[in-house]
């Protein structure tokens, strides 16, 4: 083995077991007394995790999962932005063992922090906002919707084009024709309504007349029935066999008396 190989191996082994190196840790944590350094360190780690997550999101196929991760990134960003003022206050404080250059450097670091936080991609970052006009801010997330105007909504855009004014004219004309047709229909309906109510009144007028006719005809029918029955009785009586027998018997008696008289007188 060459010396270089040995050195590399030793380096990798040391790095692997760095965390067990108490002295080195203490050195790294020598800034533990320094609140600023501590907080700044926390910030850095959080920003780094957020960036890693953002990278994962771009690789993520499942949209729901991607959305969830974006939301978490946004939450982290919001939390960090809230804590930036605290860090700023700490940055100004003097700590022992700190040079003036380092103090100035800390200030700069804090000032740079908000920009770094914003820069973390979370799926809603749009281009720089224009003060005039609108920007189609959602084109980045929905690339399939296309705007004809490409975001240029200036005066010309709302001007009537030749086609649209023609269309409007046609619409007006058709509306007028429709109104005319409706007017005619309404006139016809009015006439119908009038006729119908006149018919209604006429029928109402005739109802009591019909009732009268009804009564009179009923009376006539019952009279007729009565008369018929009596007539039948009378005719039956006239033709009854009893009357015939009586007639025949009386006739015989008369003939007998006549014969007797004839005999006597002869």
């Amino acid at each position, binding site marked *: 083995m060459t010396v270089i190989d040995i050195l590399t191996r030793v380096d990798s082994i040391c790095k692997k077991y760095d965390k067990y190196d108490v002295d080195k840790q203490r050195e790294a944590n020598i800034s533990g007394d320094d609140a600023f350094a501590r907080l700044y360190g926390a910030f850095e780690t959080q920003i780094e995790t957020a960036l890693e997550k953002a990278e994962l999101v771009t690789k993520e196929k499942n949209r729901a999962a991607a959305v969830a991760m974006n939301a978490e990134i946004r939450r982290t960003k919001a939390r960090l932005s809230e804590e930036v003022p605290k860090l700023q206050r700490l940055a100004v404080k003097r700590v022992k063992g700190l040079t003036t250059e380092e103090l100035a450097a800390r200030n700069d670091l804090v000032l740079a922090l908000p920009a770094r936080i914003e820069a973390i991609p979370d799926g809603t970052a749009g281009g720089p906002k224009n003060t005039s006009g609108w920007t189609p801010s959602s084109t980045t997330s929905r690339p399939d919707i296309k705007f004809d105007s490409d975001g240029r909504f200036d005066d010309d855009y709302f001007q009537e084009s030749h086609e649209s004014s023609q269309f409007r004219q046609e619409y007006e004309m058709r509306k007028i024709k429709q109104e005319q047709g409706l007017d005619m229909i*309404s*006139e016809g309906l*009015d*006439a119908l309504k*009038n006729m119908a*109510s*006149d018919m*209604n*009144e006429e029928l*109402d*007028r005739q109802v*009591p007349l019909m009732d009268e006719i009804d009564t009179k005809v009923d009376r006539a029918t019952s009279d007729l029935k009565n008369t018929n029955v009596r007539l039948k009785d009378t005719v039956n009586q006239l033709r009854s066999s009893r009357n015939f027998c009586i007639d025949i018997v009386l006739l015989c008696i008369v003939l007998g008396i006549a014969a007797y008289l004839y005999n006597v007188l002869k």
Partner: protein
Amino acid sequence: MSSDPDKMMSKADKMTKLTLTRWSADWRGATELYEQAANGFRASNKYEKAKVALEKASKGQEMQASPWDAAKHMESAAALAQKLSIWNEVADFYRKASELYVECGRAQPASDALGKAARALEDVKPDDAIQLYTDACEILEEDGRDQMAFDLYRACANVYIKLEKFTDAATFFLRLGVAADKCDATNSQCKAYLSAIILYLYAHDLQQAEKCYNDCSQIDAFLKSDQCRSASRLLTAYNEGDIEEIKKVASSSTVSNLDHMIIKLARKLPTGDVTAIQMNTNDDLDEDDLT
């Protein structure tokens, strides 16, 4: 029985005259003869004689206590008198017939008889005609048959319009409204009220028209009707002097459903009055002009 009507007449007359030999008149035989004679005369177009025969026949029936037949004969006599243009006889006969019908207890034919009389006299003696129409309406109303009276009221109002007595005509339309109210004939009622308002406007009487409109608006049925809306449009148009609006309302379908005489008046409406309206609006301007 001889077929010569004259002979029948003289025979019948003899039968009815009381003489020493005849103590009571034989009305039945006489009536028959009279009727036959009348038919004979009518067939030979001797209307005067037929009329006389019918009169006598009717008298005979009356004596026989059959007012129905008597009334019928009277009506025929009146029709003949109409043909002969003897107008006062027409009126008399129809009145007699109507009385006889009332005796029978039949109001409808009674009023019909008077109506026929009025129609016959419309052109010749309009005042009598109006009187006859009014009597006819009264008969019907007494009997509770208001609905039949509508036509009579309308005819009467038409006569008044022909005489150019517009306020009287309007009064009759209002009476029509009352009759219609009694039988719940709302359409006729509303039309009657609208006609009355139009008549008042035609008579240049805006205040009266507005009063009429206010009175009629008290009635629910009128208030909710198309006719009420047309009336209010007409009155506002009058108040504003808007001739176009008046013409529009007058040619609308609501007005076109009224009687034809009223339609004619409505079409003429604004032309009677333009200057008056203008004066009205000018007055308003003067009042409002405070400068």
